[in-house]
């Protein structure tokens, strides 16, 4: 399928002899045909829980993709989700309750712009802003997760948290969260606004108001509970954008996530790492969909799955 394989690059290198390449080919099993290699890989997963071996790192795939990365990836993903939904839902409600006010137009326009900025471009702008605008020195650092000196330090000294390291970590997290989360934020704001507007004019909302309920009660108890359903579905789907969108942002900002390891493997044609990476991303997506289904049933008792 892929023109060439892991060894193609080595063949170009005059310092590596033909015999050595042939020997490596046999070691890595690249001399066997594609279906057999695929079968061996599947067999390894199911019989031994062995996801394969990275050609370029001489390590099992799981340690290349996940070691020291999975924790950060999950943390960053959750932070981004938190950022997205913590801000978008209130902004959406505000925008809907102030329909056609100047602030509503501002929010709508802002949401359009947020939707239109590619993740990586926003990341580049943030980098420029931090470097040129804020003039961030080497103490705080830009890109990556820490400044060099914090790399080897532990998170906790005994039971006392290592505050300088933690603050430095969060300083490096926010550009990533903003770059990845903004597009999703804008999308949810628009969705929330549309949903609120739709349900605010429904008869049940009118009835609630006619009974003399306070406006805030009508909005939060009646309209909101009905309007939130598509946002919950969207929450499941946002796992999708978290995986895709964060890949390129992680590359721009130099953040060590699983996606970035996948990208490195892609460039090296490290096929087993690529396969496991893709499988992992697909799994994340399915988990997101499942989560969305659970949340929907929890929020709306009318929804039941057979």
């Amino acid at each position, binding site marked *: *399928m*892929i*023109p*060439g394989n892991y060894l193609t690059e080595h063949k170009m290198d005059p310092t590596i002899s033909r015999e050595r390449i042939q020997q490596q080919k046999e070691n890595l099993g690249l001399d066997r045909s594609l279906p057999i290699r695929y079968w061996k890989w599947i067999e390894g997963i199911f019989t031994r829980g062995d996801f394969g071996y990275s050609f370029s790192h001489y390590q099992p795939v799981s340690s290349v993709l996940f070691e020291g990365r999975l924790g950060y990836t999950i943390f960053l993903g959750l932070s981004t989700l938190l950022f997205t939904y913590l801000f978008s839902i209130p902004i959406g409600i505000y925008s809907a309750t102030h*329909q*056609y006010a100047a602030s509503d137009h501002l929010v709508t326009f802002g949401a*359009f*712009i947020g*939707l*239109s*900025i*590619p*993740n*990586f*471009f926003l990341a*580049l*702008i943030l*980098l*420029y802003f931090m*470097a*040129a605008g804020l003039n961030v020195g080497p103490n705080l650092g*830009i*890109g990556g997760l820490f400044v060099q000196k914090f790399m080897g330090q532990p998170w906790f000294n005994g039971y006392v948290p290592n505050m300088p390291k933690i603050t430095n970590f969060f300083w490096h997290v926010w550009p990533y969260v903003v770059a990845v989360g903004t597009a999703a934020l804008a999308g949810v704001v628009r969705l929330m606004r549309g949903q609120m507007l739709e349900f605010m004019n429904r008869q049940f909302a009118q009835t609630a108001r006619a009974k003399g309920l306070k406006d805030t009660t009508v909005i939060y108890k009646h309209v909101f509970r009905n309007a939130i359903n598509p946002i919950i579905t969207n929450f499941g789907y946002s796992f*999708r954008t978290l*995986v*895709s*969108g964060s*890949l*390129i942002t992680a*590359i*721009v900002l130099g953040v060590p996530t699983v*996606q970035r390891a*996948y*990208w490195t493997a*892609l460039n090296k*044609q490290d096929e087993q790492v*690529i396969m496991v*990476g*893709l499988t992992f*991303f*697909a799994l*994340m*997506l*399915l988990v997101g969909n499942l989560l969305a289904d659970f949340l929907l049933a929890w929020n709306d008792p009318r929804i039941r799955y057979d």
Partner: protein
Amino acid sequence: MAEEYEMEEGTEYESRSQWQRMWLRFKRHTLGQVGGVLVLLICIIVFLANFLAPYNYSTQHRDYAHAPPTKIHFMEDGHLTWPYVYATKKDYNEYYEMVYTEDKSKKYPIKFFVKGEEYSFWGLFKSKIHFFGTGTMEAPIFLFGTDTFGRDLFSRTLWGGWISLLIGPFALITTLIIAIPIGLLSGYFGGWVDMLVQRITEVVMAFPKLPLWLALAMIVQGLPSAYRFFFIVGVFSLVDWTGLSRTLRGLVLSAREEDYAMAAKAAGAGPGRIMFRHILPNTTTYLVVVSTLSIPTWIISEASISYLGLGIKEPQTSWGLLLSQANNLESITSYPWLLIPGVFIVITVLAFNFLGDGIRDAADPFTTVGGK
């Protein structure tokens, strides 16, 4: 009573088709119109790129590597004058770093319809006339500065725009070609066909798009750069047909049971005729809306893939590829003008988003545009 319904003499009776009503609703959607005008404007600019740009997109001005944007002066001794520029010369600052400064000894007025490098206008004819310039290489004009090889970023940005503009329509057409037959077949025949098609669709849908696109783009790495555009289009539609064909299937499932489809069947029409002549035209509104709304995502995706170096390649250029020169902190801070092509991506995507929003509202027969 009958007289009441008669029309007055001379009053013209108007009947409006669905498309005319859509157009009327669109005409009241300000944001949509702004988007439409912007898209048109960008199309014109990109179409005239060779003429509007002062230099060819691949010309290397070796003496002006990483030159900052040329300042255009409008004032002279406190008076407004015809815009002019100064020549750029190299200098060294107190840290002995090379910097570009203005040579204020001579003014070079900006001329319009000036003679410059020869270019071929979309292969139709050759010309040397450029829209603006200084007319001399002693004082070149780089509106957006230059890159590592001294290529004019403004000219490159204009030229690179065609990729972003065309990727949407092309990806759309190929996606429709894949999605429509699959969706129709799956929805119309149902049974094991539907079962098989839907399971395949689900497998493709289970993968997040960008990593899969990257993996596919990796496969077509070695292909000549002139054809890369079409391979990107192919890669996009190979992954993207799923959502469209799924919704189409749903529409067909319900349309199949409707009276007009039954009537066609009773009249002896074959499945092909019912699908393509009766059911498909009834889904056009939906297809138009989805199409315009998916164009912006393709523009962003192309930019992302090109930024990563797997999309459009040199000597061709696109906005994403132009941005890839700003891939490290040093070049971003030293040559911030390299970020300008990104602004064009944002404006184009914004315009298509506005337009798509307008078309969606116009296509919905229940919207009252403006709401006031």
